[in-house]
């Protein structure tokens, strides 16, 4: 049994084009976003599925039988932009070079070709995976051989559907899909459905009546409105159903057996990838080289570095003094820790003494401690203090916290390559030094083979790797920093870095070191209370269920709820009926045990997260020293962990109970300050909406004023309900909520939510103008930008793809 991958070339190229910014281009100006995204997807597919056979189907410009049947078919589609059409040619060139068969047929769509080949392959007992962003292929899914890998958006957001998956997604079986879609309509093909029939209604109608014939034979059983709509649009729906069925008998010159990858000329591949400047993609072809038969990619130069291990406090002192007196061109310095960086003892420091060829020195922390380390510490204070040489490091906050723990402050921090990497691309999931060096300098950094790679103390005896690894990193930082500094300048981020992010590093490090006081006794009582609550609920659950079982075991819980108590389940997962909170919520009325279960889960979560969770984080000094994250949130906001203080509930009584545990040091009091309605003020400012600005300037209650304008009443006539709705709309805008989200929050129909939103935009027209301008700008540039120049890529690309994209524009 062979595996056949069938790709819809147009659909996937379009997805890539709209997912990636159009400023991706080669030095000669050829825009490459779509061909890059497509090639990246292709390599991922080859790597993940290792297919024996593969083909890419394309649409043709000639009209198809669908255009003949429905003159308006796809009539609304605008001509693809030139920069997309050119790239379709490049996509074909890439496929040609890689020896991947391409198929098209005049008068047929790519979908029909895929349907034909999938049917033939499955008939022959082969496995088929269809990769597309077009829902019409749902009808082709057939267990166990044919699946659809549906591209939801972008280049990496996929979901794999089998028959159960299609049923869960749509409510109908693959065979029923065309008739279901006929009722629902397909705006992307300009095929209107029946008014008032959405996905849910369509699925219900089709499954209840066994198809369109059944639906139209049983119109009398339906509500008058639905009956009228269906009757009026029957012809339309039946016509939709006709054109939505994919053809499985397109005459083709090839069959599934002919779709093995052809051999190809390595030189052609190299030339094409060179032309497209897909350097890292070329290397990734090497990764899947065994499958595509490519020669190994050109080796990337790796950073070479000598290391001098400092063995005495006197040598350490001499080194620090020499570096302070005659600083190297750039002073790279990294710290290594026994455990979590910054939270555990420092094991040593590595300094770059020479950048190229690399030379570094390793100073074990033991040389800096106690009486014998006093002079070395003083020399280090002078080296790192204000006026010292500009310090370059990776992960400055941990370094500052580690040095703070031995009484040292840093006053000369210049560039933190981790924070700079974040500002340049806040969509990454991590900013590892090796990745940044490869991306911005094009040089590899050898990973440490020992646990030192994670900055951990090596306990298994291979410890001699640590000094060399740390020294390499120090040199890597010194090599990387100028490239990042330049990139920050190029993107207009220097000021944001120097005036906000860089000074913030030290502020956060100091705050982590200070920690916050905790009333441990209170916390213990709180935790004991939760433990008792959980135990009581456990007993009550066992009584209600009539047997003792492990509540946290999904299997046992399922057996009790659905087999023993005979409750009617509402949702199936891959492994059985769902017992998650939302599923249980729906069973609430069926049995008293459900209510108890929901409360038990809530108590357990509070206990583990905030009860035991907080107690575990209390340090020897009786305080909690969280770690603040400056390089995680894509919005630019800060977050924290150990513990995560950001998810303590803000407005509930529970949240209040936990906040009571945070106390000042004896003899002090806590001051808490925050901004009042900061998001709304920011909206007023960014949009320069005179109505909003005036409301804030006069100091009136902003939500009342907003409500008065939105609902067209006098300030004094605003009801509490109107004020609440206005408030929700305002915050909804700040958090990117649309009518659907708003409807959910206000428990009102979506249409009503949309009306309120529309009224809001009429009342505050400049806010709408601002939102539209932001969207337009993001579309054009591929990112949004704040007043201070902070950028956020749109859409959110998967980290690996985005990294590769930037590698193309790496500078030496």
């Amino acid at each position, binding site marked *: 049994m062979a595996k056949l991958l069938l790709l819809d070339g147009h659909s996937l190229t379009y997805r890539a084009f709209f997912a990636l910014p159009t400023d991706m281009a080669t030095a000669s100006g050829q825009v490459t976003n779509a061909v890059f995204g497509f090639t990246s997807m292709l390599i991922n597919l080859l790597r993940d599925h290792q297919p024996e056979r593969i083909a890419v189907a394309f649409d043709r410009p000639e009209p198809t039988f669908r255009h003949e049947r429905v003159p308006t078919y796809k009539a609304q589609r605008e001509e693809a932009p030139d920069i997309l059409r050119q790239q379709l040619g490049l996509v074909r060139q890439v496929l040609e070079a890689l020896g991947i068969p391409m198929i098209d047929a005049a008068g047929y769509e790519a979908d029909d070709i895929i349907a034909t080949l999938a049917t033939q392959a499955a008939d022959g007992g082969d496995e088929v995976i269809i990769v597309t962003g077009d829902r019409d292929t749902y009808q082709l899914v057939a267990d166990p051989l044919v699946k659809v890998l549906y591209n939801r958006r972008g280049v990496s957001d996929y979901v794999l559907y089998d028959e159960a998956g299609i049923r869960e997604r749509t409510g109908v079986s693959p065979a029923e899909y065309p008739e279901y879609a006929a009722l629902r309509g397909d705006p992307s093909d300009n095929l209107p459905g029946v008014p008032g029939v959405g996905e849910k209604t369509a699925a219900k109608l089709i499954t209840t009546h066994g198809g369109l014939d059944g639906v139209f034979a049983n119109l009398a059983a339906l509500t008058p409105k639905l009956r009228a709509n269906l009757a009026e649009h029957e012809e339309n729906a039946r016509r939709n159903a006709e054109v939505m069925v994919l053809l499985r008998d397109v005459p083709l010159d090839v069959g599934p057996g002919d779709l093995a990858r052809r051999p190809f000329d390595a030189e052609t591949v190299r030339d094409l990838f060179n032309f497209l400047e897909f350097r890292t993609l070329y290397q990734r072809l090497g990764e899947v080289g065994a499958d595509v038969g490519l020669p190994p990619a050109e080796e990337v130069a790796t950073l070479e570095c000598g290391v001098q291990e400092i063995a005495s406090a006197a040598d350490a002192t001499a080194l620090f003094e020499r570096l302070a007196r005659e600083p190297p061109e750039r002073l790279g310095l990294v710290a290594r820790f026994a455990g979590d960086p910054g939270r555990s003892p420092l094991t040593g420091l590595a300094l770059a003494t020479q950048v190229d060829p690399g030379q570094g020195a390793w100073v074990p922390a033991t040389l800096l401690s106690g009486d014998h380390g006093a002079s070395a510490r003083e020399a280090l204070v002078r080296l790192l203090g204000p006026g010292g040489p500009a310090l370059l490091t990776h992960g400055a906050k941990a370094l500052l916290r580690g040095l703070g723990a031995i009484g040292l402050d840093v006053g000369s921090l210049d560039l933190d390559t981790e924070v700079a990497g974040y500002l340049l691309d806040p969509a990454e999931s991590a900013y590892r030094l090796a990745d940044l060096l490869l991306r911005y300098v094009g040089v590899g950094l050898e990973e440490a083979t020992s646990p030192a790679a994670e900055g951990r103390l090596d306990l298994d005896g291979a410890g001699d790797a640590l000094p060399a690894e740390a020294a390499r990193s120090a040199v890597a930082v010194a090599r990387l920093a100028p490239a990042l500094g330049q990139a920050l300048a190029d993107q207009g981020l220097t000021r*944001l870095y120097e*005036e*906000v*992010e860089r*000074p*913030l590093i030290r*502020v956060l490090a*100091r*705050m982590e070191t*200070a*920690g*916050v*006081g905790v*009333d441990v006794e209170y916390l213990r009582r709180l935790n004991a209370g939760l433990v008792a609550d959980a135990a009581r609920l456990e007993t009550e659950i066992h009584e209600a269920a009539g047997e003792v079982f492990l509540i946290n075991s999904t299997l046992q819980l399922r057996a009790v709820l659905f087999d023993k108590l005979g409750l009617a389940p509402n949702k199936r997962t891959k492994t059985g009926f769902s017992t998650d909170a939302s599923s249980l919520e729906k069973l609430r009325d069926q049995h008293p045990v459900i209510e108890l279960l929901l409360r038990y889960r809530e108590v357990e979560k509070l206990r583990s997260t905030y009860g035991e969770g907080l107690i575990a984080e209390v340090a020897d000094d009786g305080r909690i020293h969280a770690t603040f994250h400056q390089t995680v*949130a894509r*919005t*630019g*906001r*800060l977050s924290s962990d150990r513990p995560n*203080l*950001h998810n*303590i509930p803000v407005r509930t009584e529970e949240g*209040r109970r936990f*906040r*009571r*545990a*945070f*106390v*000042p040091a004896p003899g*002090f*009091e*806590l*001051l*808490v*300050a*925050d*901004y*009042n309605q*900061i*998001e709304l*003020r*920011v*909206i*007023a*400012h*960014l949009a320069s909406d005179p109505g*909003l*600005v005036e409301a*804030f300037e006069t100091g009136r209650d902003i939500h009342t004023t907003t409500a008065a304008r939105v609902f067209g009443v006098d300030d004094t006539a605003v009801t509490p309900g109107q004020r609440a709705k206005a408030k929700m709309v305002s915050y909804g*805008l*700040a958090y990117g909520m649309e009518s659907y989200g708003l409807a959910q929050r206000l428990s009102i129909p979506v249409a009503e939510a949309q009306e309120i939103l529309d009224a809001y935009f009429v009342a505050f027209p400049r806010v709408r103008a601002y939102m539209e301008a*932001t*969207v337009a700008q*993001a579309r054009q540039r591929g990112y*949004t*930008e*704040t*007043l*201070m120049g902070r950028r956020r890529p*749109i859409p959110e690309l998967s980290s690996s793809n985005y990294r590769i994209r930037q590698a193309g524009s790496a500078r030496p």
Partner: protein
Amino acid sequence: MNAGIQGLAADIFKVALVALDRRLEAEGVRSRLVLQVHDEVILEVPPEEHHAMCELVVATMAEACELSVPLEVNLSFGASWADAKG
């Protein structure tokens, strides 16, 4: 499309944190920053600095960024985070 809104709010808060810490250090006070969560800062303040901190914190945060609308700061004291915040 709220990135610009969230991003600017984040920037203002960060500027405020940096400015606060700088002023606390410059004034040589015993008060110190101990926590930041969402748009909230928490300081430990000795009784003799109570009034000075009211003014310093409110002024520093309100001046963090010049918008076309005033920035307003809520401030409270307490024997615990819950006490102060409610």
